[in-house]
Each structure stands twice: as C-alpha cells, then as structure tokens.
C-alpha cells in the first residue's frame, strides 16, 4: 500500500510541476529557435544566435512588429532528428511560439518541418539546404532563404561549363549528401558541356580527419577541377593536409568556401582556388549589406558568417509577411509568402509561390588575399549565378513531388 501511495504522490507532484510552469502573456511575438548546438553545430549556432539577437534588439527598439515585442526561445536539437522533433513540438505546444526558426542540420530540418506542418506553424530555413525541404517535403507554412543543394550544384556546374576545364573529379564523404551532390553536378555539367571528362570520384569515410590515403589517389587521377562536398572544418583540414603533397599546383578545388571555413584555414588557404559561397558579405555591395555588416562588426567584433546573414534575412521576410497581412495567423502568412517581395540584404528578392524558395543564387569567386582582412582570404571576381537560371522549374517540381507520392 505504501508503494502505491508513494507512486501516486510522485505522479501528482509531476502533474503539479507541469501545470504550474509559467505561461507568457500574449502581447509578445515568440520566436522558437531550434538550434543544433553541439559538435560541428557550435560555430553555426554562435553566429546564427548573434544575428537573431541583433535583429530582435533592433526591431524591439523600433517598437517591435505590429506593436508587439519579439522574444526568443532556444532549444537544442543536438543534431539529432528525434530530439529536434521533440523540441519543435515543445516549442509549439509548451512555449506557444508563434514562429519557428529552423536548424543547421538537414536531417533535423526534415524532421522538424513535418512537425511545423502538423501544427501549421510558420518555419523558415536559413542554413539547412537539402532540396527535399522545398520539393518532396514542402508544405505552405515553410520558406527557405538559403540556396538549396539544387541551386548550389546547378549553379557551380553552370559557371564551370563556361570555363575551359575538362577533367573533373570529386572528393566527398560517402553518404547521402555527398552522393546526391556529385550525381546532380555530373548530370548538369555533362548536359551543359558534353565534352567534359568525368573521372572516378574519391569517397572518404564520414567524419574522416585524416586524408593522407585519399590525396595521392586524387592526384593519380590527374584532374583539373576537384569538386568537393567537404565543407567547414573538414574542407579546411583537407586543404591543409593536401598542401605538402602539392595537390593545388595542378588542380583547383571547388567547394563551399563559407566564411567560417575561410577563417579556419586562415593564411594556409592557397590563392587562386575557385569556390562558391552562399552569402559572402564582402562580395555583396548593396547598401543594406554594408550597413548590416558594419552594425554586426561593431556589436560582435567579428565579420558576419553566411549563416548569420541568411537567418537575419529570413527574419526580414517574416517581418515583411507579418506587416503585409497585419496578423500573426499562419494561414494568412502562408498565403502572403506566395510571391512575396522583400528587400533582402542581398538586394531585392522574392519568394517563389510554388515552393517558397527565395530566388537566392550562389556566389562564385577566386580566393585571394585582401589587405582589409589580415587573418583569412576572401574571394575576388565574385559573380552571382542567379537562382532562376538553375533552380528546378515548376514542371520539374511537380514531377518530383508526383513521384514521391
């Protein structure tokens, strides 16, 4: 009998704890940020958080949106999809967030977008860029402001097809992300420039830190361009390790040269490499970008990464949509997102109605030293490959969605 009473007391206590947790007033707009904090997510998280907080501070100083102040609630999805879907649910049901900000990891994003769909909450993706989010897993309550894998792969393929390079190979981790990137890149490139020679790819172990076996293999293929789905710290390690082998004397490596990676590689980064970035502050010369960069640097004493800029941009879209509909209602906002135009930090942009993908392209350039930046290289001769040239057409979109059913 004592056992039973004991357990019932525990249950009652638990219920009490749950029921008594504070509920916030409804005169605020709550933003729920599902953040991948640990491990490789840490650097992303830091700059994303900084950008979001800066936006909230600036907006609240002007009186908020629709007269309501913004508030941020953060939960750690730990790069794990099941944790992500759990916290997404918690943010929606428990914290009663009005809008959700998506995670870094594409795997988590896929889980979280479903939760947003289930509860009809508006969510946007600023870093995770799997194409599935806007194609097979699309729903009207989401939007994406980072160029997706299709735009990225297609963009660089289009750019390269105009160059004289003939021999292409690939190095990347052996899993879905790498495989799909190489597959779509090969396809696009072959279509645009039939006379290219596609050499065998070199697949590395996922999470590999030691590339010494792969580098000679790569060199044996004698390529002119090495396309790589390595990014961030992995790409940085690879480049540093490849230098003593003399890999870059003969070939250029093209991959995602985002700011964090450039900073990590520092002055070890060779000049003259052809790469691309999703949102490089130093190459986009709109007045909005310049102003934003200055404010960011003044506040945080560091330059804004691609992710910081894009999450800020996403918040600008959200703000625009709320202003347009004069409400926080998900249905109205979802409708307003169709074709919504806004003044992005990247220039005037719009959200395509069929997949809520912003027409944001990728930026391709050549690495170079720059006197303004003492610790890392940037890219010069940067060209933007516009999204409209490379994203999936509406017919293709319909076909892919049809096939998934």
């Amino acid at each position, binding site marked *: 009998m004592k056992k039973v009473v004991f357990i019932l007391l525990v249950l009652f206590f638990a219920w009490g704890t749950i029921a008594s947790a504070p509920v916030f007033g409804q005169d605020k707009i709550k933003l729920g940020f599902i953040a991948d904090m640990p491990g490789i997510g840490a650097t992303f998280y830091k700059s994303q958080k900084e950008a979001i907080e800066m936006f909230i501070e600036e907006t609240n100083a002007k009186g908020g949106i629709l007269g309501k102040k913004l508030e941020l609630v953060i939960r750690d999805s730990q790069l794990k999809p099941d944790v992500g879907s759990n916290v997404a649910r918690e943010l929606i049901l428990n914290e009663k967030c009005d809008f959700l900000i998506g995670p870094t990891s594409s795997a988590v994003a896929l889980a979280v977008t479903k939760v947003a769909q289930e509860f009809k909450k508006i969510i946007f993706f600023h870093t995770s860029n799997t194409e599935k989010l806007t194609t097979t897993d699309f729903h009207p309550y989401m939007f994406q402001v980072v160029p997706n894998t299709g735009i990225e792969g297609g963009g660089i393929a289009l750019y390269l097809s105009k160059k004289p390079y003939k021999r292409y190979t690939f190095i990347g981790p052996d899993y879905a992300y790498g495989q799909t990137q190489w597959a779509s890149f090969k396809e696009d490139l072959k279509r645009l420039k039939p006379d290219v020679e596609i050499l065998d790819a070199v697949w590395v172990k996922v999470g590999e830190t030691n590339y010494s076996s792969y580098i000679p293999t790569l060199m044996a293929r004698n390529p002119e361009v090495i396309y790589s789905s390595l990014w961030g*710290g992995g790409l940085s390690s690879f480049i540093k390790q490849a230098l003593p082998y003399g890999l870059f004397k003969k070939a250029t490596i093209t991959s995602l040269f985002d700011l964090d990676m450039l900073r990590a590689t520092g002055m070890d980064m060779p000049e003259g490499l052809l790469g691309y970035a999703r949102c490089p502050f130093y190459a986009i010369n709109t007045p909005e970008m310049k102003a934003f960069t200055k404010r960011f640097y003044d506040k945080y004493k560091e330059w804004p990464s691609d992710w910081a800029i894009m999450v800020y941009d996403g918040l600008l879209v959200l703000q625009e949509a709320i202003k347009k509909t004069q409400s926080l209602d998900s249905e109205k906002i979802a409708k307003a997102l169709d074709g919504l135009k806004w003044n992005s930090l990247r220039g005037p942009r719009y959200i395509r109605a069929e997949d809520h993908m912003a027409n944001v392209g990728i930026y391709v350039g050549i690495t170079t030293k720059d006197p303004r930046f003492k610790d890392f290289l940037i890219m010069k001769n940067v060209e933007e490959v516009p999204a409209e040239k490379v994203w999936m057409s509406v017919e293709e979109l319909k076909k892919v969605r049809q096939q998934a059913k």
Partner: protein
Amino acid sequence: MEINFLLFQLLNGLTEGMILFIVASGLSLVFGVLRVINFAHGSLYMIGAYLAFSLSTRFPQFTLGPYLLLMILVPAGIAAIGLLLEVTLFRRIYGKEHLLQLLLTYALVLVLDDLVRLVWGGDIRNVPRPPSLAGSVEFLSLSFPTYNIFILLLGPAIALGLWWLLYRTHAGNLIRAAVTYPEMLGALGTNVTWVMTGTFVLGCVLAGIGGVLMSALANIDLGIAMEKIIDCFAVVVIGGLGSVWGVLLSSLIIGVGKSYLSLILVRLAMVFPFFVMALVLVIRPWGLFGKPER
C-alpha cells in the same frame, strides 16, 4: 595500379597503424595488469590531442623544440589526470563485478568527452607541424610528408622502448609478473598497489603520446575518442589482450588494410576491422597472440 603507388599507400597505412599501436598498447597493458578495460582510454587520447593544441598556441614560434616539449608535457599531463582517476575511481572497483567496471568506465567516457566539449568547444582543431617536419620527401616520384616518416620512425622506437621496459627492467618484471601471477606478487612483498598505479599511468602516457602525434597529423574533433577506442578494441580482440607484439601486429594489419581498401571502396575500409574481428572470433577466439580464455 603502379607499384610505387601501392608502396606509398603501404607507408600511409603503417603510419596510421603506428599511432593505433601506441594507443592500443596502453589499453592492453592496463587490462593485462588491472583486468579493467578502460573505455575512457580513447577519451584520454582525445584530451591529449586537445591539450597539445592548447599548449601549441602558447608558443609564438612553433618549431621542433616546442613540439618535442609538447611530447613531454602532454603525456605528463595525461599521466597526472590518469593518476587522479586511478586513485579516486578505479581503485574502488578493482574487486567488483566486471559489469560495474565496464559501466563505470563508460560513465567516465561521457563525463570526460563532455568536459572536453565544454572546455574546447566543438570546432575542429589542429596543431601545425613544426617547419622541419612540415615538408615532404620525394619518394618514387611521389611526395611523402616528412611528418609521416617521423611517426614511422617513432613507432618502432616506442615499441622497442616498451619491450625494453617490460623485459629488461625491474619495474617491467613486476608488471609482467602482475599479469601472470598476481597473487605471487603480493606474497613476495611487493607493493602491488604501486605496480597497478604505475601501469595505469604508463597506459595514460601512451594515450597522451598518441594524442600529440595525431594532433599534428590530422585534425582533431570531438569524435576521435570513440573512433579510437573502437579501433583499439578491434586491435585488442584480434591481437589478444596483454600481448605487446599482438597489439603491434594487429594495429599494423588494421592500419594497412584500411589504407588499401580506401583506394578500392571506402565502405570496405570502414568495415574492415569488424570483418577481421569476426574472422578471428570464429577461428581463434582468444586473439592471434592471446591465451585461451582468461
């Protein structure tokens, strides 16, 4: 495939194998004497690597001198941590069920790995190679990094040093006796506690050395602890616990095997250690050099 290319990959594999040997031998020794499989051995290796990183940033000029200094400081640091752990935790569980011992060291892995994350963050780090070791050597028309050669020379040196320690010194005799005749040792009046603590510290020193070597070979991140301990386990299962030569041979087998397989199909390379483990289990369950069931 040309012969010089194959030779090249062989050297690469041996380099990896050497580091694995250094770390795994520590694990094997600790088990042989203390009869405890220290899960946290991989974490100690990782701490060594991160420690090397932190210390390396203190030097304005990171040349060979500071690097060698690191080789002394880091293992000493890991030894100190190991000493602390041995005295406070491991001593309490020597007599207990294997079950609890395993769970304890497993819990330790969690605590240590998370502490590393809190202290050093999630970014990938590495230690720059000292300029004298950073170049490459022309070898059969391929550039072979000097640092790898350094490791290839250091590995056997350590193996020899270990052998000398175990078979030619009084301390070594005690350790080997503790492995084979623990009761006798106590009866002879030796302070068994010191032997055990000493062995544990030695194991930690080896983990620390491995960590320093790796920190400049490739990059380090929070995943290297688990990766290493699993490989160490494979080595120990294949080679047999308590045998230095067994550990050396199986480390090299795994290192070279992975290297060659990554040329053909990297998926096979990942699976290779498990495959060999499974094979050994079926044919000779106590390992290539081990003794039947302890």
